[in-house]
């Protein structure tokens, strides 16, 4: 069938600059660039270009420009180019339109409508370059109180209360769930290395933890137990720092996952414990969890399996009654509630789901934190939030709204090279991240990529320290849930009410 689609990108090559080195041809995973020996010319097949910018970055003479294709239909606010293209694509294939990465639609980004406080006169700001500024965070359940025994001179103090397992992280930022299988071994290992070096955690996603990484990086992992139960064995659970039961994901609340068989290479098949080349299908629900009491049974089964030494997290997508669900999760025995918002990323999701299901993480977080406090159980679980965090400003605002720590996925991918072309589901990532093609995965050197990730964590942590110091705070825990340091700008009354934040000037 002749396609009626327009190309997404236009490739402009400066012939004066082009030296026919063919780097673009080799770098492109979509076979867009082609060298014609007879004519000594480079040609482009624009229809295949996904705009990943790999060729542009690697062109040694900066001869290439790749930008959105100017050809368009008659402008129409309702029938946009994207909608028309989707219709044509569907008419030609009859399928569900897939996409990768997070929701790119212009839903209100509340972080951009929240501003932070700073100290002036009545209390001093603190300079993080000269004084300690502490970001250390503990994830897990805290007791209602501490009972202690102490000697006459208070020098010898014993804690009598039995404590719940907690995990210490050096910055309130952890890497989101990205499974081995969805991303390459090298990308996965880069996250592990960076998490270890910086003293934080990475989430294995639902694809298991390769045996080769268990000993060295196990202590920095959040291992997922998801609906497909891929890669779950006793060692997997016991080497981890945290166990996470994945109920839902912000990019595709209510539906499962599908790793196509062509991505299930021998290594992935070993790690996931499924036959090589078979599709890895994650059901929409966990079929042993149809209710909150079922969830509780799985939480305690996992705790039993790990001798009550690991905090258990439950990850849900932010949906309408997220506060009540989170409260149920805490009462079911979870030590951490992870909430993934409307803008959460994915390797593959139906576009219609990604763009239309779920609620923004800011509102979900504010509602959950408030509900847990009202019920007097906020200390019984840490809150981890995910879904579209773009910079350290978003992170610190989330902490002020009540989060204990923040999951970042997309920023980590971008740090490793990702350009958000949204084609993760094709398995042809030219940056070597979201692919299992050895020709492509070799491009990502874990030594270098992990350095880029550590730099990102360090940069954000420094920025968080600067902002904290500006507010006259020298430990992150004193900002947690401290909405007094936030003000809203350009928000409706109901939005301010849900966020529990005053308007600027109020």
């Amino acid at each position, binding site marked *: 069938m002749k396609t009626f689609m327009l190309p997404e990108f236009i490739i402009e090559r400066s012939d004066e600059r082009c030296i026919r080195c063919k780097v673009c041809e080799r770098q492109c995973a979509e076979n867009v660039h082609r060298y014609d020996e007879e004519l000594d010319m480079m040609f482009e097949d624009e229809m295949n270009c996904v705009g990943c910018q790999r060729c542009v970055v690697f062109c040694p003479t900066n001869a290439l420009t790749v930008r959105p294709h100017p050809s368009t239909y008659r402008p129409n606010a309702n029938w946009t180019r994207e909608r028309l293209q989707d219709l044509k694509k569907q008419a030609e294939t009859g399928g569900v339109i897939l996409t990768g990465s997070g929701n790119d639609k212009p839903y209100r980004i509340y972080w951009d409508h929240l501003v932070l406080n700073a*100290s002036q006169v*009545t*209390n*001093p700001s*603190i300079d993080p370059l000269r*004084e*300690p500024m*502490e970001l*250390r965070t*503990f994830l897990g359940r*805290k*007791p209602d*109180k*501490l009972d*202690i025994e*102490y000697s006459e*001179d*208070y020098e*010898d*103090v014993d*804690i009598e209360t039995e*404590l719940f397992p*907690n995990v210490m992280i050096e910055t309130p930022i952890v890497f989101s769930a990205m499974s081995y299988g969805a991303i390459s071994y090298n990308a996965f290992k880069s996250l592990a290395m960076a998490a270890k070096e910086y003293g934080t955690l990475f989430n294995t996603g639902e694809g298991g933890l390769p045996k080769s990484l268990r000993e060295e990086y196990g202590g920095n992992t959040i291992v997922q137990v998801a609906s497909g139960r891929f890669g779950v064995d006793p060692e997997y659970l016991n080497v981890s720092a945290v166990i996470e039961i994945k109920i839902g994901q912000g990019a595709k609340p209510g539906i499962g996952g599908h790793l196509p068989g062509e991505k299930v290479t021998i290594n992935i098949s070993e790690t996931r414990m499924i036959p090589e080349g078979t599709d890895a299908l994650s059901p929409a629900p966990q079929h042993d969890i149809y209710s909150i009491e079922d969830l509780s049974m799985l939480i305690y089964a996992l705790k039993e399996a790990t001798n009550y030494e690991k905090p258990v997290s439950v990850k849900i997508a932010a949906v309408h009654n997220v506060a009540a669900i989170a409260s149920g999760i805490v009462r079911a025995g979870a030590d951490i509630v992870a909430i993934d918002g409307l803008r959460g990323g994915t390797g593959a999701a139906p576009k219609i789901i990604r763009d239309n299901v779920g609620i923004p993480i800011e509102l979900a977080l504010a509602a959950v934190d*408030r509900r847990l*406090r009202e019920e*007097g159980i*906020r*200390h019984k679980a840490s809150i981890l939030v995910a879904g579209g965090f773009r910079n350290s400003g978003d992170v610190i605002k989330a902490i002020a709204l009540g989060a204990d720590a923040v999951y970042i996925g997309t920023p980590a991918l971008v740090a490793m090279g990702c350009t958000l072309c949204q084609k993760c589901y094709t398995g042809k990532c030219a940056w070597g991240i979201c692919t299992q093609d050895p020709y492509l995965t070799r491009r990502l050197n874990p030594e270098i990529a992990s350095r880029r990730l550590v730099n990102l964590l360090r940069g954000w942590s420094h920025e968080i320290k600067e902002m904290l110091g500006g*507010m*006259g*705070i*020298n*430990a992150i*825990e*004193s*900002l*947690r*849930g*401290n*909405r*007094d*340091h936030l003000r809203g700008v350009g928000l409706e009354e109901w939005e*301010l*009410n*849900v*966020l*529990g*934040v*005053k*308007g600027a000037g*109020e």
Partner: protein
Amino acid sequence: MKFDIDRRSERYLPTKDIQACGLFGVMNIEGKRFGGEMAIKAIVNMKARGNGLGGGYAVYGLYPEYKDYYAMHIMFQDRNMSAKKKVDEFLAKNFDVVYDEEIPTNPSAKVMYPPLVWRYFVAPKKSEGSLSDDDYVVEKVMHINTSIEDAYVFSSGKDMGVFKGVGFPEDVAEFFMLDEMYEGYMWTVHSRFPTNTPGWWGGAHPFSILDWTVVHNGEISSYGTNRRFLEMHGYYCTLFTDTEVMAYAVDLLMRRQGLPIEIVSKIFAAPMWDLIENMDEKKRKLYTTLRMVYAPLLINGPFTVIVAHHGEMFGITDRIRLRPITAGARGDFVFLSSEEAAIRAVSPKLDLAWTPRGGEPVVVRLKKKDHLLSLKESV
């Protein structure tokens, strides 16, 4: 000026009070009672630390003849007699009131809009097996403070009382005739410099619940975190001041959870992680656990606080020492003050004068020399 609070969303809660202050406390560790001259003279010496919008005193060992009864000092805004009638009825219903009278005042004192202030000596009237006496009193005090308009409880402890108001502390002392009428073995005093609220008699310090009193200087930047944690434990702030948060935190940790100030001070002014990492293993575990469990009660930003209850008074400043505190001792008298000059003003000769480090409490206890423990941690 109590706030009408709309709790549909936290955004309707009033903004908190911002203030700076002068503090002073003195205890005779042998328990001998003495008059108010020292407290008054010391706070006058720190006049620049207040601006005449609030002053107040807490006196311990005040009512030995009624020491078995809760002494309630209750103010009635604008001398509102219908509020008093409601309080009288409420007290009569819930307590045996053994004696009550208007607290005598000097009408010529330079204070603004004095309310009617009454004292009641009461015993709880409650059924067996319910709340403890203390918790019962706390609940009733909270009821008066939140539900009876124009009535506010200054203090509710046994054998102690709070006298406070709008004016410079010496004017408040003159109004209540503290220098001539009362004696106690321990006095704390506060001079207030609010920057964003007009004075209200109930909003002056000391802030008190049962026999606990708090005088506080600072603007804590962790207020929102602290307040929310305390709300979770049933403490609803009604005044929106840092002091209120400090008082509730002390009540929760010390009275309800039974932790000594030596531990509580490490929660309020936790040692830095760098320091904790260099401790021996047992201490490292203790301090790490304290920070982990009580992270929401780390008091961040500048503060100095003097907390007192029967037999004990302690002063502490924040962990990076952004507000001053000085300690001194002479004979059986131990002093805590924002400034050494104020101590010298009442006791020019001192056996000891020292400046504690940030986060190191000076604990003064009856019949004990515990205050000397903080000497080795002094600057």
